[in-house]
């Protein structure tokens, strides 16, 4: 999920969170694709930022992220469940880059 400004939203981007009003009422559901007309409607409602489906790559490189994980798990890697946590994190890192 990504938070983007309404201006920078790419055509066809999918809302990851619904648009709700102050009373908590859903105005536009999650999963809706955003094109120009909807963009104008959102702008007229005073909305400047929305959450869309997508992923952002961390600021650091993959190698650096992996090295940090290796280093920080030095003291808990022996514990089988912590080893599983580390493996899960490494698999996640593999996926996001």
């Amino acid at each position, binding site marked *: *999920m990504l*938070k983007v400004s309404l201006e920078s939203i790419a055509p066809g981007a999918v809302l990851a*969170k619904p648009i709700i009003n102050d009373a908590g009422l859903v105005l536009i559901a999650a999963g809706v694709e955003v094109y120009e007309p909807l963009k104008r409607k959102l702008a007229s409602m005073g909305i400047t930022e929305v959450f869309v489906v997508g*992923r*952002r790559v*961390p*600021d650091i490189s993959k190698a650096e*992220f992996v090295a*940090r*994980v290796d*280093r*920080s*798990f*030095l*003291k*808990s890697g022996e*514990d089988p*469940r*912590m080893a*599983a*946590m*580390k*493996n*899960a*994190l490494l*698999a*996640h890192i593999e*996926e*996001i880059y």
Partner: protein
Amino acid sequence: MPLDFDAVRAKVERTNAIPTIPIVIKKILRAVENPATSPAAVSKLVSSDPALTAKMLKVINAAMYGFVARISSVNQAVVLLGMNVVRALLLGISMFEMMEQAATGLWKHSLGCAIIAKLLAQKKGIQDAEEFSVAGLLHDIGKVVLSVQYPKDYQGAVATARERGIFLSEAETEVFTMNHAMAGAYFAKTWRLPKFIVESIRCHHQPYLTGSFPLHAATVHMADVLVKAYDVGFSGDPFVPPVHSSVWELFDFNEEQMKELFSEIGDMIFQVDDFFKKPKR
């Protein structure tokens, strides 16, 4: 030569004597302790400081509502969270403010922990998980208190942990004869913060110690480990501590579920960095 336990404790408990705690905070804390003070009066007091108001609303919305601006006034925060929680937040924010730039890494770590604690609580079926965010946000307040009261000694403890490759808690105990969890609990108790906050602070490294708030302590413990694993901000700890076995019983995640969890964390956590970026213009 370690510092004397009683001396450290006294100094941690005497934070109300720190001249840099804003007067408005002291006024608010005093007002809230008086049961006759109405929520409206507290709102008015807080709102009299626009910078503090803006900061508080920003922190609440980030930590509790995934950066969606859901709470827009102090009054709304007081009604939703209760006066005691608002009071704890104000105290926490003003303590972090005192450390200024030096605390940015710890702020990020704390905000990340708050977000993950709420996520974990929701996974346990808890709908109103705001308490868990607050506990996550304030769990390391002892580090701030020790840094404010003993700036040089605290930096020394962080350096020792890094150089000797030991956990920060161990390095702290060598210097202060107590770790940040204990220092934070003394501090929170002195300011009469809600019990669930005191216990989450005191037991976030040893969740089995709490009698009264096992779920809070366990959730903050797990969130603290996960945020360290994902390497968000800087906690001062060079290593990810192991999750205590009692907490694994509560959060019985297998490897696949943990991967899914990291993916959910990854979706939210980059916003912690954005939170601290100065707005453009």
